[in-house]
Structures are given as structure tokens and as C-alpha cells.
């Protein structure tokens, strides 16, 4: 009896810790879930002063984001821009001529300062090591090869992964839903591990180009995975059971496979040499795991704090996270299905 009361108390504390976590980390970006894919700019020097440009612009709400690289005024395009859709972005290619070369030149991503999106810039000069930069809204300009503006190489992908999970509210909401369902620490460990393994598998598969999932149905399916957890959370409240409640790790693994394809959208390896892709993939995944682990640990720490402080919450507050998970899952599913159907 005492054990049941303690378990219920733990469950309530976890529920409320999720209220705080939801409010603290998720609410501000609800409306922008999955609109934060990074851009990618590659400049490859073919002959001195001549460059092949590859510019992958992410989409926002299905439209090309208003981002464009700004080169030094002496540079000029020598071919028209060829453009084609590519996954969740638009791929553009052209050739650029810069008589004085790009070493020491400033390149700005115009429009980036108005977004939360990052852009990875990769520059291959004929007589230098490749340079890789990560620019964002606060720092949309790079000076090629400048001292004090270190080329990050593949390390930039670590940050991209961390950023992708923290701003990818749908992924975090799914993790939250799982936390609401799991009943004990061992199941929690199994479940989080299963989700991690599963999304790592499909992230790798998608990044290495072995398989891919079309963006629109994938996003709808990810929303469905969140919606799926809503009724399961209600069952937990009612003391009922189900396959998901008994074996949440199975559900975490199955849906984790879907989420992995979603993570892949944040990892743009277009243009990267094959040799660099595994390292980029590893670091990106590590960044994702670090963000996910931070989120889970924060919730667990808050859960413990509420128990220690003996904070009791009103019933509506206890139920809020479950309804938030279900409602947002339903909203996104309808929204994304509508977009999928061309609405």
C-alpha cells in the first residue's frame, strides 16, 4: 500500500516536473516545430578565382526561406542558377568568379539575422585545407581564413545536433510523453535507450543515403507518434494498462525509427566529402543525445525536487502535460496532413 502511494506520488511529481519543463523549454517554439533545418553553402575553387557554388536553402512552411549568400562586390555569377527541390530544401547551383579570390573575403548569409536557422559554410580552396564554418542569426558573416574565426570542421555538427533537439519540440514532446508513461527507473532506462538506438539507426541510414523518407508524410507520422501517446497517458492516470504501458520501450523503438529520419533533416551532408560524413554523423548524433539527456535529467531532477519539497498540485495542473502532448500531437497531425494533401 505504502509502495503504491509512493509510486503515485512519484508519478504526480514527474507529471508536474513535466509541466515546468514544458513551460520552460517548449512553449516558445510550439508554432515553429520542424522549421529549423540548417542551410548549407559550399564553395569549391575549381581554378584560381573560379568557384562552383552549391547552396541548399531550407524550407519554412513549405516555402524556400528568404536566405541568400552575399559575396564581395567584385564577385559575379558566370552561369545561371539551376534550382531543384532536395528533401526539405531547395538545392541551387551556379558558378562564381572572384578575380581576387575568396581568401580573406567576407561572405554573409543575407536574411539569416531574422531567423533561428543556422547555415554550415564549407569552402575548398585550391591551395589550402577545407574550411568549415557554422553561422547563425547572431553571426551571419564569415571572413574566409581570418584569424580568430576558427574553422570548426566537423565539430560544428555537434552543435547542430544539440540545437536540433532543443528546438525540435516534436521530438522532445515525444520523449515527454514516454516519461509520463514509464513507471519505474529501469523501464525509463530501457525506453530512453530504445529511442536512442532506434533514431540513431535511421539517422545513419538516411545520412549515408541508403534510404530516405519523404518530408511531408514523415512529419505527419511523427505528429501521429505524439498523438498516439496522449490516450496512453490517460490510461496511466486511470490505472489501466496496455501494451504501450507495459512495454514502452517497444513503442519508443518503433517510433524512434521515424524520429531518426526527422533528425536527418537537421544534418545536411550535401557536398561533404565521403570521408567526413561518418564523423559529422557521429558528432551530430552525439549532440542530439546530449540535448535529449539534458532534457530527461532536468525532468528527473525536478521530479525529485518536487518530492523533497512536498509540493502538491491541483488536479488540473497534474493533467495538463498529458493533454498538452495529446492536443499538440493532434494539432500537428491535422496541420501536416492538410499540408500533405496540398491544403
Amino acid at each position, binding site marked *: 500500500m505504502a509502495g503504491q502511494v509512493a509510486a503515485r506520488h512519484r508519478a504526480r511529481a514527474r507529471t508536474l516536473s513535466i509541466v515546468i519543463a514544458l513551460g520552460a523549454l517548449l512553449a516558445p517554439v510550439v508554432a515553429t516545430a520542424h522549421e529549423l533545418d540548417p542551410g548549407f553553402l559550399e564553395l569549391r575553387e575549381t581554378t584560381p578565382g573560379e568557384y562552383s557554388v552549391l547552396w541548399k536553402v531550407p524550407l519554412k512552411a513549405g516555402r524556400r526561406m528568404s536566405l541568400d549568400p552575399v559575396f564581395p562586390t567584385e564577385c559575379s555569377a558566370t552561369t545561371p542558377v539551376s534550382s531543384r527541390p532536395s528533401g526539405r530544401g531547395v538545392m541551387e547551383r551556379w558558378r562564381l568568379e572572384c578575380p581576387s579570390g575568396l581568401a580573406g573575403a567576407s561572405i554573409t548569409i543575407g536574411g539569416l539575422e531574422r531567423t533561428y536557422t543556422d547555415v554550415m559554410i564549407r569552402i575548398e580552396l585550391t591551395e589550402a585545407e577545407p574550411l568549415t564554418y557554422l553561422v547563425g542569426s*547572431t553571426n551571419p558573416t564569415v571572413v574566409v581564413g581570418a584569424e580568430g574565426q576558427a574553422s570548426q570542421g566537423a565539430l560544428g555538427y555537434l552543435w547542430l545536433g544539440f540545437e536540433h533537439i532543443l528546438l525540435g519540440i516534436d521530438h522532445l514532446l515525444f520523449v515527454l510523453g514516454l516519461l509520463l508513461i514509464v513507471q519505474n527507473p529501469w523501464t525509463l532506462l530501457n525506453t530512453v535507450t530504445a529511442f536512442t538506438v532506434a533514431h540513431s539507426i535511421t539517422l545513419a541510414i538516411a545520412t549515408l543515403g541508403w534510404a530516405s523518407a519523404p518530408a511531408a508524410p514523415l512529419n505527419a507520422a511523427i505528429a501521429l507518434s505524439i498523438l498516439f501517446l496522449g490516450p496512453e497517458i490517460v490510461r496511466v492516470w486511470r490505472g489501466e494498462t496496455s501494451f504501450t504501458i507495459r512495454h514502452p520501450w517497444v513503442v519508443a523503438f518503433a517510433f524512434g525509427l521515424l524520429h531518426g529520419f526527422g533528425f536527418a533533416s537537421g544534418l545536411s551532408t550535401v557536398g561533404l566529402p565521403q570521408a567526413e560524413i561518418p564523423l559529422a554523423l557521429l558528432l551530430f548524433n552525439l549532440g542530439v543525445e546530449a540535448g535529449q539527456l539534458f532534457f530527461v535529467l532536468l525532468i528527473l531532477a525536478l521530479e525529485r525536487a518536487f518530492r523533497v519539497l512536498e509540493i502538491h498540485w491541483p488536479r488540473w495542473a497534474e493533467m495538463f502535460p498529458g493533454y498538452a502532448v495529446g492536443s499538440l500531437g493532434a494539432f500537428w497531425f491535422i496541420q501536416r496532413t492538410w499540408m500533405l494533401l496540398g491544403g
Partner: protein
Amino acid sequence: MRAALRLPVGITRARGEVATSRLAPAAFLTALLVPGRADAHLVNTGFGPFYDGISHLFVTAPDLLVVAALALLAGLRGHATARGTLLAVIIAWGLGGFAGLLTAPAVVWTAITTGSFLLLGALLAADRELPVGVVIGLGALVGLIHGFLNGAESAAAGIGFVGLVGSLAAVAVLATLISAAAVSLAEGSTRVAVRVAGSWIAAIGILMLGWLFRPGA
């Protein structure tokens, strides 16, 4: 705006951004003790105003130390006092912040914000049996003052209401975690460790005040 410090956070990014976070303890202490030029927008995380607001708490020494000292002080008085103080500081921070956001005054209250965590640190180190009402009242008072300044800074920095909500969320989470830790540590010899933390906070306050009021400052 009041003095605050910048700490490198995150990873190395391109131009004008934060540097790596390999801070030597000495550099950290120096940064804590030397109030910098008033600067409203301390950290631009690139994640948007909400995350900027969260970061703001962690790079503003007076705010961070006052929350830590208050949470430890309340935690030592038991879970009931901790709960009351937590509620008081969150509400007061929110109300003060909203007032600061609306009025957006260009004020410099460094001595007051430093004095507030110095006072709380000293009370924590002394471990006096303060009445519950006094601890909660202190929580409300520092919440109003620091929240007001946070709101004013959010307005000046252009991160507005969302930034304020971010800093309020950070205060709530940090105060909850520290209060719970203090309640757990309140019994036995570990209580001394909490008091020692209070003495360090007070010492930092004294050094900061000394710097503020040094001859020729």
C-alpha cells in the same frame, strides 16, 4: 543598466560570438568580482528570446547568486519555508519583471543587487533561526527588485516579454532544484557545507561592493 558580467558559453562560433568555455577558476572569479559596463543584452544564444532570457540569469552574477542564496536559506528552514519562499520569489519576480518591462527605466542598481545577495549570503552563513514570514518576505523583496531589473533589461535588449518569461522559468527551475538540495542537506554535518556556501556568497558580495566603492571608481 546594472553591471553584469559576460561569461563565455557554448561552443566556438563564427564572428562576434561566444568563445569556448574553458574557464580557469581564477578567470571565473575575476569575472565575478569585476562588474562590467552596463549591458542589457548579455547573451544572444541564437535560439531566440526565450533562451536568451534563460541565459541571462546564468551570466548575471547578482541574479544567479541571489537565487542560489535565497533557495539555500529557505531550504535550510525546511520544506514548508522552501515552498513558501519559492512561490513568493517566482510571483514577485514575475510581477517585478512585468513592471520593469512596462516602464523600462534606465537604472543602475548594482549596489542594491550586490547588497541583496551579500545579505542573504551572510544570513545563510550565520544560519539564524529566522521566522518563516521573514524568509518569505525576503524572497518577495529580492524577487521584486531583481525581477524589475530583469524586465527593464529585457525591454532594453529587445527580447521583451518572451525573454522575461525565459528568465522567470530559469529562476523557477534553479530555485526549485537548489531548495530541494538544501532541504536534503539540512540535517547533520552537510548543513555546514550549505553554510560555507553562504559565506562564499557573502564574501563575493563584499568584494564586489569593495570594487564598486573603491577610491576613484
